[in-house]
């Protein structure tokens, strides 16, 4: 990114030229990949020309003014279609920008398009998108991961230099790992959720996807910060891109939880992560075996909470103020038919599960119980950071799987086995590439740290990037 910024700064390239180059790449790649739901060619070129004018007049908005970005299609962009990969919102154009989009505009970043996802971010492969699957740029027969599969694939294929995604149970980190790019799930509350279509408000976070750790950190610095329009956003903690220091790893205590290296873990994934850990150790880090025993309950807890919150959040799609409407003689029938016509099968499944979990006779047994187990998980995670600085695990149990390989929804939910814990406990976590397997598929390593320790995460991630590729 610094190179693009330098080219713009020294007039070696205009924003229009850079945006045009990415648009050409999109035109070439999209027939195979399907990473975008909407490409805003005209809008992006218009924004690029404005950026060029600002630079010519010496009033660039930021060093990144004129560098384009892709945005996941569940993040509101005023006037630009935001479908959430759902038929229900096929023609929905938001009337306002999400705060994070506003942040991008303040920095002068032209929005090149809206990326594909699983419908309403419910899924781990983009196979649940109403607009078709996003294929993995490293192997077109495989998924890009999800739900931010479009953002990860677009960045991996050079269709955009960076992108925004959202992560509720692993939806940034898992596709980043599958596509060989870097993805951060920030601390809960570090980034505003205003204007981001809710899946599960107690877990959702917006985060950056990019090809390098530094670019990911730069993008995070643009979107982090408090927002009066999001009551869950945390007080001002300005984030600055750290100085990259390779010495700091000396004495760094890295927790290695045995539970993440057990049954079901692909051998080549394990080898790559262990090799990377050994590399960090050889540079002076101290590996500390730890236990995160409560991860055994993470997926079931996550599933209970996410379906409950989703069924409640999706109640707003009634066909009255926006979206799909199927005419009927009475309102209840109109709601039921509109929702039946607009939602895909996974969304309906989660609404059904969530309604069950929240219904009067099951609320205590499921929802309350899951909230309490969540407390135990959070305690377990935070206790580990009294012993160690960071925790390192594989991002996913396997590399990218084949399209159509996971027919059973419960099997699909297991994709989030190593990532859901960070959302449940609110801590930041990043996925960084750590090599490829024998089939040439990218592998990812996950680094977790305590609340608001993004700077530490980036520094460790930078070392991984230097030493483990």
């Amino acid at each position: 990114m610094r190179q693009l910024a330098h080219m713009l700064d020294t007039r070696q390239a205009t924003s229009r030229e850079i945006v045009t180059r990415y648009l050409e790449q999109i035109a070439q790649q999209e027939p195979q990949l399907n990473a975008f739901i909407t490409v805003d060619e005209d809008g992006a070129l218009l924004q690029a020309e404005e950026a060029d004018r600002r630079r010519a007049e010496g009033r660039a908005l930021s060093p990144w003014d004129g560098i384009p970005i892709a945005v996941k299609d569940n993040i509101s962009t005023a006037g630009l279609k935001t479908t959430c990969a759902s038929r229900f919102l096929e023609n929905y154009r938001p009337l306002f920008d999400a705060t994070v989009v506003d942040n991008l505009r303040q920095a002068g970043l032209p929005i090149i398009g809206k990326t594909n996802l699983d419908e309403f971010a419910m899924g781990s492969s983009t196979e649940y998108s109403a607009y078709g699957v996003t294929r993995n740029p490293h192997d077109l027969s495989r998924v890009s991961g999800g739900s931010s599969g479009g953002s990860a694939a677009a960045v991996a294929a050079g269709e955009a230099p960076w992108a925004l995604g959202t992560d509720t149970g692993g939806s940034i980190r898992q596709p980043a790992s599958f596509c060989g790019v870097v993805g951060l799930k920030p601390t809960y509350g570090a980034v505003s959720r205003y204007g981001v279509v809710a899946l599960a408000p107690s877990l959702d976070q917006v985060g950056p996807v990019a090809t390098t750790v530094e670019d990911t950190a730069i993008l995070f610095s643009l979107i982090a910060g408090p927002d009066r329009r999001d009551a869950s956003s945390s007080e001002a903690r300005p984030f600055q891109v750290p100085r990259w220091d390779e010495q700091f790893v000396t004495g760094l205590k890295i927790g290695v939880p045995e539970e993440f290296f057990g049954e079901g873990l692909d051998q080549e994934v394990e080898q790559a992560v262990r090799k990377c850990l050994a590399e960090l150790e050889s540079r002076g880090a101290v590996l500390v075996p730890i236990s995160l025993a409560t991860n055994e309950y993470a997926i079931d807890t996550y599933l209970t909470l996410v379906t409950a919150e989703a069924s409640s959040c999706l109640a707003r799609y009634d066909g009255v103020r926006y979206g799909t409407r199927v005419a009927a003689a009475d309102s209840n029938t109109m709601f039921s038919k509109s929702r039946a016509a607009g939602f895909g099968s996974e969304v309906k499944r989660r609404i059904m599960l969530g309604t069950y979990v929240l219904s009067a006779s099951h609320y205590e047994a499921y929802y309350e119980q899951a909230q309490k187990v969540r407390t135990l998980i959070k305690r377990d995670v935070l206790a580990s950071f009294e012993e160690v600085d960071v925790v390192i695990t594989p991002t996913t149990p396997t590399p990218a799987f084949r399209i159509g390989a996971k027919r059973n929804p419960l099997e699909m939910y297991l994709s989030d086995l190593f990532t859901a814990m960070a959302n449940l406990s609110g801590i930041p976590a990043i996925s960084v590439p750590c090599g490829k397997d024998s089939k040439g598929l990218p592998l990812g390593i996950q680094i977790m740290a305590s609340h608001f320790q993004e700077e530490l995460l980036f520094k460790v991630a930078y070392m991984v990037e230097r030493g483990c590729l």
Partner: protein
Amino acid sequence: MFDLIDRQDVIRMARLARLELSEAEIDQYQQDLAGFVSSGRKLQQVDVSAVEGTSHAVVVTHELRKDEVAESLPQDLVLSTGPDVSDGFFRVPRIVEEQE
């Protein structure tokens, strides 16, 4: 506490969720709910006595804003997204019975 899931449960949930389901979907979600209930059993084994629930991962104190009139989106713009609007309103099917 853990009932077996029968078709009537599924139909009741669908009604609560305002979701019209086909017969095939009812069968499918009956199976899915059953699978889900068995995974819920595992969570039941966890001892949570004396544990408070967590509803948000990071504790935030909510600050009340001043009760001031602020600018809002213009009415015609807001109505522009509606599938059926008339006279400054979103139109819906009749919800109150006409008096005889």
